[in-house]
C-alpha cells in the first residue's frame, strides 16, 4: 500500500525538553488517520516536522512518496492549530491569495474559493473583511483555504476546537467527501469520539513518545472485552448488584471481573429463564484506552 506519510524515528528537543522521542508511524493513501494525544504531547511538532516547518534533530520523513520538498509540501493542505488570517483582507481575496501560493491561477483560485464558501455556507460573506467574521466562521474560511487546491494529503490540527456542533458536523461531512475524492486526511485531536467516528487507523502519542499505532478496531479487540451488555426484561437474581447503571430501560451492563464472565452472565439469564433480546461483548472505548495508556505512560 503506498503511503501518504511515513515518519521514522523522529526526535526533537526544544532546549532541555524532549518534545518528540523516537516516533515512527505511517499513513496509508486514501485513509482518514487519527493523530491522538493529550495537550502538549508532541502532535503539532510532529506535523510541523512532517511539513518541514521545523527540522527534526534526527529521523526521517517521507511525504507523498518522496522528500518533503517545497513542491511536495504544496500538494498538502494544512490547517494549523495556531489559526488566524489577515484581518483586513476580504474573505474571497484571502482564499484566492492562498490558492495562488499553492500554484493555482487567479481565476481557478477564485472559482474554487467561491465553491468552497458555498459548501460551508459563507458565500454571502465573500466580500467581507476577515475581521468582521466570528471565530468559528474564520476557522471555516481557513479550513476552505487548506482544501482550495484539492490537495492529495490534508492535515488538520485540532480542526473542531471552538466550533459549534453544526459546524463540526459540516466539517466531518467535508472530510468524508475529501476521502471519497481520494485524498488522505490526517487529523490531530484529543477528542476521542471524533476519531472513533472518522478514523480507521490511529497513532497515540503522549509526552513525545508513541504509545499505540494501528487499526482502531484491532486495537480495541486486542484489549479484549471489558464487559457484557444485555438487552433483556430484567436482571437474574444471582447477578443482582453486578450491573452498571446505563440510564436506559432494558439495557444492562456487567463489567467483567473474576466472578463475572460472559459465560456466567449468559448462564445466569438461561437459569433464570429471562428472555434475552440482545447479548454483546463490550470492547473498551477509545476514550478508555486513551486514558489508560496515557496514565500508564505517565506513571513513574
Amino acid at each position: 500500500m503506498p503511503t501518504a506519510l511515513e515518519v521514522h524515528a523522529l526526535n526533537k528537543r526544544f532546549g532541555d525538553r524532549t518534545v518528540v522521542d523516537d516516533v515512527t508511524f505511517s499513513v496509508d493513501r486514501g485513509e482518514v488517520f487519527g493523530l491522538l494525544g493529550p495537550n502538549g504531547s508532541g502532535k503539532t511538532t510532529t506535523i510541523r516536522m512532517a511539513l518541514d516547518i521545523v527540522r527534526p534533530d534526527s529521523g526521517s520523513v517521507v511525504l507523498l512518496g518522496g522528500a518533503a520538498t517545497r513542491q511536495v509540501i504544496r500538494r498538502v493542505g494544512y490547517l494549523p492549530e495556531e489559526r488566524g488570517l489577515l484581518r483586513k483582507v476580504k474573505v474571497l481575496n484571502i482564499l484566492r491569495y492562498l490558492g495562488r501560493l499553492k500554484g493555482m491561477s487567479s481565476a481557478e483560485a477564485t472559482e474554487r474559493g467561491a465553491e468552497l464558501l458555498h459548501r460551508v455556507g459563507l458565500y454571502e460573506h465573500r466580500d467581507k473583511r476577515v475581521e468582521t467574521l466570528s471565530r468559528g466562521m474564520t476557522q471555516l474560511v481557513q479550513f476552505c483555504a487548506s482544501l482550495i487546491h484539492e490537495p492529495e494529503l490534508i492535515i488538520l490540527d485540532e480542526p473542531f476546537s471552538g466550533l459549534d456542533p453544526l459546524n463540526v458536523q459540516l466539517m466531518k461531512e467535508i472530510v468524508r467527501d475529501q476521502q471519497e475524492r481520494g485524498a488522505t486526511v490526517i487529523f490531530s485531536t484529543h477528542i476521542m469520539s471524533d476519531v472513533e467516528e472518522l478514523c480507521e487507523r490511529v497513532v497515540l502519542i503522549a509526552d513525545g513518545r508513541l504509545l499505540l499505532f494501528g487499526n482502531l478496531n484491532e486495537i480495541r479487540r486486542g484489549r479484549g472485552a471489558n464487559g457484557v451488555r444485555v438487552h433483556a426484561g430484567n436482571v437474574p437474581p444471582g447477578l443482582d448488584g453486578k450491573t452498571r447503571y446505563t440510564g436506559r430501560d432494558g439495557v444492562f451492563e456487567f463489567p467483567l471481573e473474576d466472578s463475572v464472565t460472559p459465560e456466567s452472565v449468559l448462564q445466569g439469564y438461561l437459569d433464570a429463564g429471562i428472555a434475552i433480546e440482545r447479548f454483546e461483548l463490550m470492547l473498551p472505548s477509545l476514550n478508555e484506552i486513551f486514558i489508560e495508556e496515557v496514565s500508564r505512560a505517565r506513571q513513574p
Partner: protein
Amino acid sequence: MRGSLSDVQVIFGEEFRREVSRIAYRVMTLLVPALLILGLVTVPVLQGVTAGGGGPAGPALLGYVDPSGVLEPVRNTPGLVPFGDLQAGVNALAADEISELFHVPGDYIETGRVDWYRHEGGLFTTLDLGQRFSDILALAVVADRVPPEIAERVEMPADYEIQEIDSEGQLIEDPRTAAQEVGGFLVPFIFAILLMISIFTSSGRLLQSVADEKENRMIEMLVTSVSPFSMMTGKVLALGAAGLVQITVWVLSALLIGPRIMDQIPGAGDLAIGPGLLVVIIAFFLAGYFLFAVIMAGLGTATASAREASQISAIVTMPAVVPIWLSAIIFESPDGTLARVLTFIPLTAPTTVMLRISAGEPSFTDIAIGFVVTMAAGVALLWVAARVFRAGLLLYGQRMSLRLVWRAMRQAG
C-alpha cells in the same frame, strides 16, 4: 509546478496591492503634492500680507516731516512723501496713506535723532523700511557736499560680485548666486528628510506586515506554500516598490510644482533638481530601504508582537537620524572626517550622503563607497534575516533570544 520566482511574483502582487490600497499610504503619498499645491496657492497671498505689513496695500510709501531741511536734495526720490507739519503726517499715517512717517528735527545734524512714527505691532515687517530711509538720509547729507560719483558710492557702498574658487584655488566660472545656493542646499536637505521618512515608513510597514502575519497565526500556512526566502523577498520588493512609487510622486510633484512656487517669491533661487541628484536620491532610497527592510523583517519575526517590534525598530533606526543631529558639523565641514566616516557606515550612509550633497559636492568615490557598503550590509543581513525569519516565525508570543538567533544562523537554510 512553479518556481520560487512565481512565488515571489504572487507575494509581490498581493503585498503591493494591499499596501497601496491602504488609506494611510495614499494620504502619505499625496501629502507632499497637496502641501506643494497649498504652497502654490498660499505663497502669493502671504507675499501680499508680508509686503504690506500693517500699512497700506501696494508699494510702501515713506512719509517725512523735515524741519532740518536735510532731505531737500532727495525730495524727488520715488516713494518719499513730504509733509509740511507733523500732525498732517500723523493723520496720513493713521489713514494708511503712507507706511511709515519720519520726523527729522532741526538739530538732526548735531544729534542724529530721527523720530519714526509707525503703526503698533509692525516692528518685524518695517525694519527694512527704516533701513531704506536711513540710506536716503545718508545720501541726502552728502549730496551737496561731495561730487556725484562719491554720493553714488555713499548710496551704494558695495555692489558685491562673488568670486568662488575650488579646492585647488582655481576660479569657478559662473558661480551660483546666493539664491541658487539656498536652493542647492534646500533641495537635497528636504530630500534627505523625505528619504528618511520614506525609508522608515516602508521598512516599518514591512515589519508590521511580518509581525501581523505572525500575530495572526497565518505564517504557518504561508510557509507550507512558499519558502521563507521567497516570502521575504516578495514582501521586501513589494513594500520597496510601494515606497519607490511614493518617493517618485514626491519628486515629480516637487519638480512640477516647486519651480512655480519659487517663481512667486522674488529673488528666490531655482529649485531645479539635477539628473545627478535624482539618481543619487533614487539609488540611496533603494539601498537604504533594502538595508532597513531586511533588518525590520528580521525584527518582525524575532519579537513577540507587532507593538514590541516597532519599539525595538525605533532603536535600530536611530543611526539613520544621527547624521541629522550632527548636521551642523556636516554642513560646516561636508568633506570632513566625521561626514566621511558617517558616509562609510551602512546605517548612516543614506542620510549623510543627502546632507553632504546639501552642503557641498562630495566626491563621486565617497558617494559610491557609501552606496556599496549600504547594499553589501543589506545583502549580508538578508542572509541573517532569512534564517532568523525561519527560526523566529513559529515562536508565537515568545521573544527570540540571541542564542536562538545564533543557532538559527548556524543551521543552514
